[in-house]
């Protein structure tokens, strides 16, 4: 295998006395989907916010293509090719698809004018590349479905140079069919081969449909990791529950 695009080494993050991340290691390869799994409070959000430059690690080091990097702001992270698609997607409902696509990074002509026709075309083409055909780029995002909004946010991150795409629970809060649309989008991005995807989810079925590699977090620590072929279905379920035996949980439930 090639060298990982992003490597996380022994990252510790403390909020005062609270240990959010306790020495996490992670390797993310281009062209792969890396599923990051764990219960609520396991440290998933802290980890991705550290990767996205929102938090600075207390200790430990991030490496991009083998070179150590320090992100002091989300801008630093996105300049280094880390594109984060948050759960709320950071889209503005009242604005058009194009205006959302280029929000904060508009194409400018003289006097700061927008090159609207060109932007419309790019937004349309980029969305088409990952599978959504838009008839009308002037449509307000508020009229789009949840899956389409997800696609917009992903297409935007890729167009602006993301080499690592962090998807924060992209399938939660979506209907069945739209979940599948998002998974298809993930596979299409994976097929390009040059982008690494970190896929955060609660849903083990979704992760098994697309993931090449797994990392399980519990209480701020990595409790298991491996490639898709190496982990059994039961093992994945056990690790997702934070290492507890499913049989024990079932027993506890039955006893009530």
């Amino acid at each position, binding site marked *: 295998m090639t060298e990982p695009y992003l490597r996380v080494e022994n990252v510790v993050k403390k909020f005062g006395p609270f240990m959010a991340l306790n020495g996490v290691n992670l390797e993310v390869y281009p062209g792969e989907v890396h599923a990051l799994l764990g219960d609520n409070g396991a440290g998933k959000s802290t980890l991705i916010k550290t990767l996205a430059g929102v938090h600075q690690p207390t200790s430990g080091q991030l490496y991009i293509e083998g070179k150590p990097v320090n992100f002091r702001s989300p801008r630093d992270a*996105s300049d280094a090719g880390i594109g984060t698609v*948050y759960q709320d997607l950071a889209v*503005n*409902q*009242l604005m058009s698809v194009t205006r959302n696509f*280029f*929000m*904060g990074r508009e194409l400018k002509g003289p006097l700061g004018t927008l090159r609207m026709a060109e932007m419309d075309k790019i937004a349309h083409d980029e969305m088409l590349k990952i599978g959504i055909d838009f008839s009308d780029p002037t449509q307000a995002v508020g*009229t789009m*479905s949840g899956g389409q909004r997800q696609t917009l946010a992903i297409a935007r991150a890729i167009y602006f140079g993301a080499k690592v795409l962090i998807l924060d629970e992209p399938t939660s809060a979506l209907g069945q069919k739209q979940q599948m649309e998002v998974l298809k989008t993930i596979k299409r991005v994976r097929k390009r081969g040059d982008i690494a995807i970190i896929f955060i989810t609660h849903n083990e079925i979704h992760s098994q449909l697309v993931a090449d590699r797994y990392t399980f977090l519990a209480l701020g620590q990595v409790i298991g990791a491996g490639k898709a072929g190496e982990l059994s279905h039961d093992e994945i379920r056990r690790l997702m529950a934070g290492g507890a035996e499913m049989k024990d949980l079932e027993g506890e439930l039955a006893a009530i």
Partner: protein
Amino acid sequence: MSDRSEADRLTQESTLMRLVRRPEAGAFIVMLVVVTAITFASDFKAFNALGLKNNIAIISQFGIIATGAAMLMIAGEFDLSIGSMIGFAGMSMAMMLKWGLPFGMGEATPLTAFILTMCMTLFIGWMIGTIVVRSGLSSFIVTLAFLFFLRGLTEVCFRLINQSTQISGLPDFKEESWVAWILGGEVFGWFYDLWFQLGGNINRRGEQWVDGFDARFLWWIVIAFCAWFVLSRTQMGNWIYATGDNKDSARANGVPVNKVKISLFMFTAFCATMFAACQVYDTNTADAAKGNLMELNAIAIAVVGGTLMTGGFGSVIGVAFGAVTFGLVANAVFYIPWLDGSFYRVFVGLVLLAAVFANERIRKRITGGI
């Protein structure tokens, strides 16, 4: 799988339907109704040569401040200090013209009085904006504080230096100063000349009646055009929409949200100062009570023009329609003898309520009913 995709659910609308659904549509219809009603109720007096000039004067005043208020509302903030800022700026200019520049800098000219006042008001606008974005407090309460503060300061300065809260009888600067002329003089004289040559615009002695519109008409057109251009055609416009719609997602995408807000607070201060400057150089008077309640008129016009109270959506063209409507109704009492002047406020109340409902409907349609 059928060939039908999610995108097919969006019906392509005709151009007419698109026009009807624009935020300006309601304001445009209300304006048509008001123009027609006032034309007939005033027996065409509201639109004779002098009536048109006087109506345009107040419409332009409304238009100038409502444009500023609307831009700020689209970015998600309010400015209640506009009215007091008008009083403050008018006081500042008139006092400099009468008593000279502050700190013994000598005699004031219309230019220096205007520039110095503009610097002060822009600074106050910057300060209001900075307080709002740094503290995270509601702009409603911060600018309410400045409403009281600036009005009080205006009165105090007047009494201390001038012994009276009014200045009248300043010399007419329009003859010798081009600054006074472009702010308080007359524009579009060709329009009235043409009207005269076509056989209208004649007074009782058979001479040309009216020579031109007030200069503020031109300023309104300039300010409204710039605002429209910035909002719909530039990067700054996209930032303003993004800031008002959802400032967190705007920030996450690299929009300098705080800078956008501060510059718009400065823009409302600029509009208030232009309002005051046109008034001072036109009438050569100032009064501590000038601009009272104008901030509420400005917000009402912005809402009637289709601006959402919650930000992120609005139109400068709709605001222009709103200004025409409000200006005509405010002046209607002069042309319709039986009309009680307080009907203006009755009208404002009713139209405002109707507009809020209409805007809410637009917002729900776009955001899917949340």
